[in-house]
C-alpha cells in the first residue's frame, strides 16, 4: 500500500512515498514503525491517540479511527495540519 509521508517525517523514511502493509491504519502504522523505528511515536501518543497536528487520510477522506479498515488499492496520506508560529 502506498503511503504519502509529510516532510517533517522524511528524516525517517528518506522518501516522500513509501510502501507499507496492514489491514487497518493501526496495523499500517505498526508496519511503518518496523521499517522506520521511532516514526510512529512522533504521530501517535502512548495512549494510542493521534497527536493534535497529525492527520490521516485514506484516498482523500480523513479518518479519525486507527481501527479503520484498509482495502487493497487504497492509498494513505499522512499530513501535518496547518499550524505555525
Amino acid at each position: 500500500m502506498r503511503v504519502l509521508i509529510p516532510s517533517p517525517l522524511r528524516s525517517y523514511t528518506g522518501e516522500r512515498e513509501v510502501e507499507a502493509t496492514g489491514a487497518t491504519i493501526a496495523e499500517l502504522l505498526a508496519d511503518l514503525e518496523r521499517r522506520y523505528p521511532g516514526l510512529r511515536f512522533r504521530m501517535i501518543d502512548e495512549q494510542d491517540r493521534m497527536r493534535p497536528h497529525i492527520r490521516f487520510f485514506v484516498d482523500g477522506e480523513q479518518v479519525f479511527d486507527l481501527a479503520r479498515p484498509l482495502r487493497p488499492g487504497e492509498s494513505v496520506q499522512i499530513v501535518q495540519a496547518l499550524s505555525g508560529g
Partner: protein
Amino acid sequence: MARTTRKPARRKQGSATHARRPRAATRVVVLVATRKGAWLYHGDASRRTWRVDGPHFLGHIVNHVVLDPRDGRTLLAAAKTGHLGPTVFRSTDLGRTWKEAARPPAFPKVPEGEKGRAVDHTFWLTPGHASEPGAWYAGTSPQGLFRSVDGGVTWEPLPGLNDDPRYRTWMGTVQDGTPDGPKLHSIIVDPRDPAHLYLGMSGGGVHESVDAGRSWAPIVKGMEVVEGFDPATVTFHDPHCVRLCPTNPDRLYQQNHCGIYRLDRPSSEWVRIGRSMPKRIGDIGFPMVVHPRDPETAWVFPMDGTSVWPRTSPGGVPAAYVTRNGGRSWRRLDGGFPERQAWWTVKRQAMTADARDPVGLYLGTTGGELWASRDEGRRWACMARHLPEIYAVETAEVR
C-alpha cells in the same frame, strides 16, 4: 560582541621534548537549546572566541541539551516539533552525529476507557550519579519523572512519583501549570549518594527522595505562595529553579515564583533570602545559579513579577544579582548589558556557570541573545544574537 568563528581552532602540536605527556587541556562548550533548534559554542582556552556549531535539529523545539560529564562526549537533547511528538536525541561524538532514543519518555498505556497521560515534551535532563554510568533522569510536561539506565536509549517511568495519588493531586492539571504546560524540573542527584534525589514541580513544590526515587516527600516549609492561598497546600508552591551547591551538597538555593530561598540540610525549612534584594527589583525570576566551589555565592536574574506578570527585565534594564554571603546581601551586575529598552528575560534553564576560575557565567534570553561573562558577572558581552528564543543554556568541559 564576542567573536565567533565557524572554523575549528587550530591545535598547537605538543612538544616532542616533553618527557611526560601533558594532561590534555579542556575547553568550555556552551550548549544552547532554543525554540527552533540547538547550537553548540566551542570556546578557546581563554573563553574569548567561540566556534559556533549549529543549528542542530533546525525547527525542533529543543528544551534542553546536556552533556554527560562522566564521559565528556555523550549529549542528550530533548526535542519535539510543533507537529511531531516528543523524543530524545543522543550523540556519542559531541554532536557530530545524532541518533534517536529507541523508547523516549512515555507514560504507561492505560486500559481502554480510562484517560491516560501523554508526554507533550521532555523539559529537563539530568545525568545520573558518577557511580552509575548510563543513568539519566528526565522531567516532562505534563509532569512525570523518567529514568534511563542505558545512556538515554530507553526510558522508564518512575511510578513512585508519577502514580502516587498525592503527587497526582499536587501536580494538578494543565490549567494549574505554567503557560506552556506544567513542568517537572530541577532533578538533582546528591553527589555523595546516588539514591538521594531532589526535584521541583511547577506547580507542586520541591520534593526529596532517599531511596532512588521509589518514594518522595515534599520540602516546602518556609516557602511562600501567591497571596490569599494556603502555603500548607503543596500544590500551590511553584519553585522555578532549584540548585545544589557542588562543594556543600547540604545547601540548596531556589528561585521561586514567590521569592529566592536557601535551604541548609538537615533543616527542612527554606529561608527567604530574597528579602534582602532591592525593593524596586524584587526577588522574582526564573534561573538560579550556584558557584562551582563557593557555597556562599549564587546568582539570580530578576524579572518583573508585578501586576500582570510581564516576565521582562524590571524597567527594561536587565541585570544579574549576586550574593557572596549566602543571601544576606546582593549586588547588581549589569556591566555591558543594555541600559534601557531591553525587555527580555531569562528562562529557568537558560543561565548557568562554568567551572573555571574566575567562573564564567552564560545566559540566553527570550530575545535570542547569548550573553557571557568571564569574571563572575562583573562584565557581560553578547556572544550571539538573532537566535530563536532561548530555552536552556548549559556548559561542559570537553577535551
